[in-house]
């Protein structure tokens, strides 16, 4: 970490010239004398100001041109000192593994950019939520420290491999701390790659960073731990708020869930049903009786082939775009069609071309909820005839991830059977 975090140009020169560093307490003379501490600069700020914190706790930017005098008084260490975890293992409690991949739930303020960045270790997270100590013995491990928009299928694979290494362990379940933006994609991949996994995997995120008193991180984490310890059910789940209130946390089936709001705590919704489980303060309500994994035996298939694309059809869609996919060697295209699963007549030729190139073509709907049915209207029947596979009520994002997974684990690229088979509750019955 630099002594001049965020400073550049004139303000950096000013600090260096006066031999003042971030964290130093100084006497600054402008129109009046003030004692203040130099703070890191917001990364995209100009180079005309230095940021200081007054004794009252307020930060302000002082224009260097207005500073008549600056005198060093003392230094403090702005690096956070880590407090050692005081939790001792309690032999009577079950063990849970907490894997951290990043995201808001595992983030803290970065004074370089002035924004929230993923940096908190899983251990820190545990320190912030001491209640976990009463529920389970939690081991923490940092896998990545990435916002979820930066996660790729390679990360999914690494996560699955890590989890696979714990398939035969004494953990009662695994919590995966994850950014919320792409949490549903990771959940879907883990569901297919680790079908039949013997212990529950619960992805947890937060919509309000853990540095705020109102953060949802702690309650989501606590609920995930309670769920693992009390529910005795296998599967991949996403555990997030069920409403604006802190009193009920939903555990959604990992293949049936979507982030439906940009900012609310209860952004995640199970599509077409109520959440499988609701974790309350003292009880767990079970709404779904069906098994998550359709096969009992654990058969990991942890490969991925990213040559699958998700195409949202809209009026005016240019068929050339699909032609580009064909020429780039794509092996599967999942359409998000209109209504019951339609795309316009202008697409028919390119569909034929794709089919000739042995590309899997699956149909989902861009409607928020409901099942694809291509037998109702003429255009649907035309598309069926052209060889498009209807994917019933599988969520389009889940279908995309499933196609990547299926391509990665099939030698001849023939994924029709895998795509229509219900593996991890991606289809409702």
């Amino acid at each position, binding site marked *: 970490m630099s002594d001049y975090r965020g400073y550049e140009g004139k303000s950096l020169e000013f600090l260096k010239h006066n031999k003042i560093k971030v964290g130093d307490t100084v006497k600054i003379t402008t129109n*009046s004398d003030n004692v203040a501490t130099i703070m890191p600069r917001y990364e995209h700020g100009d180079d005309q100001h230095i940021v200081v914190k007054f004794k009252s706790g*307020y930060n302000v930017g*002082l224009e260097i041109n207005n500073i008549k005098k600056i005198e060093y008084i003392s230094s403090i260490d*702005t690096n956070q000192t880590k407090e050692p975890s005081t939790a001792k293992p309690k032999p009577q409690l079950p063990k849970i593994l907490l894997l951290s991949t990043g995201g808001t739930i595992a983030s803290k303020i970065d004074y370089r950019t002035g924004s929230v960045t993923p940096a908190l270790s899983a251990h820190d997270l545990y320190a912030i939520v001491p209640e976990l100590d009463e529920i389970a013995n939690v081991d923490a491990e940092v896998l990545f420290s990435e916002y979820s928009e930066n996660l790729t299928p390679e990360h999914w694979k690494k996560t699955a491999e890590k989890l696979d290494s714990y398939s035969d362990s004494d953990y009662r379940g695994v919590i995966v701390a994850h950014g919320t933006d792409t949490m549903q994609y990771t959940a879907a991949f883990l569901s297919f790659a680790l079908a039949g996994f013997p212990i529950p995997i619960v992805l947890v995120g937060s919509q309000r960073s853990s540095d705020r008193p109102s*953060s949802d991180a702690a309650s989501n984490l606590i609920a995930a731990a309670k769920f693992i310890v009390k529910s005795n059910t296998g599967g991949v789940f996403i555990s997030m708020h069920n409403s604006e*209130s802190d009193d009920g946390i939903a555990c959604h089936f990992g293949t049936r869930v979507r982030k439906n709001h940009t900012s609310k705590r209860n952004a995640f919704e199970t599509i077409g049903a109520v959440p499988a489980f609701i974790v309350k303060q003292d009880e767990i309500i079970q709404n779904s009786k069906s098994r998550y994994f359709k096969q009992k035996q654990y058969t990991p298939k942890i490969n991925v082939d990213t040559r699958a694309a998700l195409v949202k059809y809209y009026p005016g869609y240019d068929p050339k775009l699909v032609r580009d996919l064909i020429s780039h060697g794509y092996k599967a295209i999942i359409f998000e069609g209109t209504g019951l699963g339609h795309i316009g007549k202008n697409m028919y030729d390119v569909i034929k071309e794709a089919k000739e190139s042995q590309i899997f073509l699956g149909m989902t709907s861009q409607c928020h909820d409901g099942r694809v049915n291509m037998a109702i209207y003429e255009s649907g029947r035309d598309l069926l005839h052209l060889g498009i596979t209807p994917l019933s009520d599988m969520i389009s994002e889940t279908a995309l991830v499933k196609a990547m997974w299926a391509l990665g684990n099939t030698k001849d690229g023939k994924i029709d059977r895998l795509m229509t088979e219900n593996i991890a509750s991606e289809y409702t019955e």
Partner: protein
Amino acid sequence: MSDIEIDKIGLKVGLEIHQQLATNKKLFCSCSPMESEDYPVKFFRRLRLAKSELGKYDPAAVFESSKSKLISYSANPQSSCLVEYDDEPPHSLDNDAKATSLIIASALHSDIFSEIHVMRKIVIDGSNTSGFQRTMLVANGGYIEVEQKKIGVQSICLEEDAAKLLKDTENVREYSLDRLGTPLVEIALDPVEGTPSDVKKIALTLGRLLRVTRRVTRGIGSIRQDVNVSVSGGGIVEVKGVQQLDQLEGVIMYEARRQHGLQLIAEKLKKIQFDDLTKENTLDVTSFFGNSKSKVIQKSLKDGATIKALKIKNFDGMFGYEPYQGIRLGKELGQQVRFFGIGGIFHSDELPNYGIEKEEVEQLRKMLKTEEIDGFLIIAGSKDKIEFAIDAVINRIKDAKNGVPAETRAATPAGETVFLRPRPGASRMYPETDIPPITISNSELEFAKNNIPKPWDSAISEIQTKYNLNKQLSEQLFDSDYLDLFESICTNKANNPNFVASILCSTITNLERRGLDATLLKPEHIARSFELLSEGKITKESLEMIYESIMSVKIKSVEEFIEKHSSSMSEDELGQFLDDLIKSNLSIIKKQGNHSSSVLMGMAMKSLRGKVSGEKINKLLEMKISKILEE
């Protein structure tokens, strides 16, 4: 016990004024602050401690978190959105509020910062859904002139108002979100030496300066004074929530007595030895009190409380020592524990009492192994709270040696103050990362300078000339909550300004002095009543009656008053009217018998509608007809 000599204790008072801005928008979203009566949205939250950027916990926040309550929020979508629910990041800073804060800073000759950083001030009592209040330091320094003396300005901040507390029970605290996020300007003045009435003058002058801008809200709750009071050698005590200027002097006097009293107590404590006071001096006496006849004790036991006794060496007489009336260490300790939801404490200087008998006290002394010169305390409370309370009490007793602890207190309506929480430090603040720093441009500074309001006296003489009012009435009007309303009522020239002003300034104030609730009388009511007056639909005399009825919850609208009072047909008049009606329709009655009543009813209603209830007319009419038929 002699009373305090106010000029000899080094009394210093710093004013801090919070003024709502009349932007009609929240500071970080475009919802308009308005009071609601129903709340279709309800949700529950729990707040947790968070560390500041320096990795420290704030003492005030730690204190609040130790009380950990479930918070219930009620909201109306007309006055709040996801931003207030803490379910959406704040939108950008409202430009009108920014401009107003810059105008006020310019009027106070303050140095405006060219780059403003929005901060989060941790407040976890639930009054902010996020667990922090957004606040920004806009300017430093400057002064205000009060009677040819310059009073220094420390700082000017722009911040969000808090949610309104609806109800506070042991485990749940309820707030409404109508007011949350309303822009406030906070002005802190340098502490001054002087009498409480000098301080009041300063507050009045500053309040006037703000109102001259015509950009601030008027009315109850729209301006709030906090005062920082200290006596020489003592910590600074921040007293929050002085709603009205009249309360200010009383609160300062009370604090002066309390603080100097605490110093007198400290002098006594310095002479005795009790430094080894720790939690080990406590004894669980729950079972000992099992058969106590004290009702207070029995009630606590019934609620499942644990009772603990704490021994303090050489402390006999120290809890009850009263240097000024009502100022005792025992009272201070009672206030400390009350904030953990614990009713209070019993101390050895007041026992036997409250149903605790002499024998019990003697036995207790034996169990605690106390000598006569030792003191003890009894605290009862639930298991999860009592430990916090005992820690707080021990710390407070140790601190008593140092005189006045720096803390935050709340003003009571009776003009006293009660302990609220420890004084927060710098670790209470960290940057609001959802909003980038805000640059103040030269054109904004220029605009602010050009819009510095004219001095208060010229504002008064302007009103005087424009409406032909005398000076006193103009001043009263300006200091009242009704200036804007006055001007809008007088725009159409239908009412005499002198009459309007005197109704607004004296009639309503008189009703308020009689104990009626002025908050029930809304500007719409007043405006409507003058409208009806100018249309000749009501008399001048009825204005007071209307306001009185509204302020005493008898009616809800001006129309309701008119309806009630135009229906004043006496019983005799009604009887006469119906008799006349029957007389001229005898033939119909004879022909149709009892059925004729409906025909006559129709005729009667034509003239009596709105004056007498139909039910009443019908009853009387039927009676009169059957009487005729019997004859």
